[in-house]
């Protein structure tokens, strides 16, 4: 059952990704990407990460992609722009690079099986069940990773300032 669900969502994600990179219209691309992100969120649930799945939907599919669409609309790029997709040479390079990369990733996948640090099956699921989806992530986040977490806020602040400075016509 889980497997079926996984492959279903996986198929949707991959198909959407393919459409995302091949659609001429940026708006279409964005929407197909949103579709991929949703599918991934579903896969996250299957992988015992419900909190991340929720964040994925909220932040990624919700906030970030809306930002993209917003910019596309703002710049009035909805129409198909000529020359967005590269010519035959570009395509050949892209496909070749993709094939090589797949080959390499497959090699990686085959060659490096997970090590001995494996937790017994269901441990993470158990933790999530015991502590609740949020607390399961919050505990390491606010204990072990407190400092990085706080630093992240600085990063976000910098991003906000940067975005404002860059995007505003005149300060």
């Amino acid at each position, binding site marked *: 059952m889980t497997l079926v669900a996984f492959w279903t969502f996986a198929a949707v994600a*991959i198909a959407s990704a393919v459409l995302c990179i091949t659609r001429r219209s940026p708006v279409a691309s964005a929407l197909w990407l949103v579709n991929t992100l949703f599918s991934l969120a579903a896969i996250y649930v299957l992988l015992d*990460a419900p909190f991340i799945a929720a964040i994925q939907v909220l932040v990624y599919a919700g906030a970030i992609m809306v930002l993209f669409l917003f910019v596309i609309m703002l710049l009035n790029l909805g129409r198909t722009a000529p020359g967005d997709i590269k010519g035959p040479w570009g395509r050949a390079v*892209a496909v070749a*690079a993709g094939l090589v990369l797949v080959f390499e990733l497959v090699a990686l996948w085959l060659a490096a099986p997970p090590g001995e640090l494996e937790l017994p099956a269901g441990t993470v699921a158990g933790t999530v069940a015991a502590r609740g989806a949020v607390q*399961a992530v919050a505990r390491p986040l606010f204990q072990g990773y407190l400092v990085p977490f706080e630093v*992240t806020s600085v990063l976000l602040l910098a991003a906000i300032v940067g975005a404002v400075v860059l995007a505003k016509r005149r300060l």
Partner: protein
Amino acid sequence: MLLGPSLAVSAILFTLGVVGVLLRRNAIVIFMCIELMLNAVNLTFIALSQQLGLDGQVFVFFVMTVAAAEAAVGLAIVIAVYRHKDTVNLQRINLLRG
């Protein structure tokens, strides 16, 4: 378990992101392809966190934060560039020329 399939899917998605980057000239689309790659990596993290502990999920959390920041700044740059050049086609933009 789902680890192997997840990694395979992650690899395919990542490759698609790369192909997208190579294929497109529109800055925003290339951006989206990068997001796609980030998500592929996130999937790897999540899949492995099942085996290695919750740290992976924390990392995904961070990746999303960075992605958000990056998207904000990156799109701001796209807007700024568009104002100068009236295009987001990267082949017409060579501000970085040495």
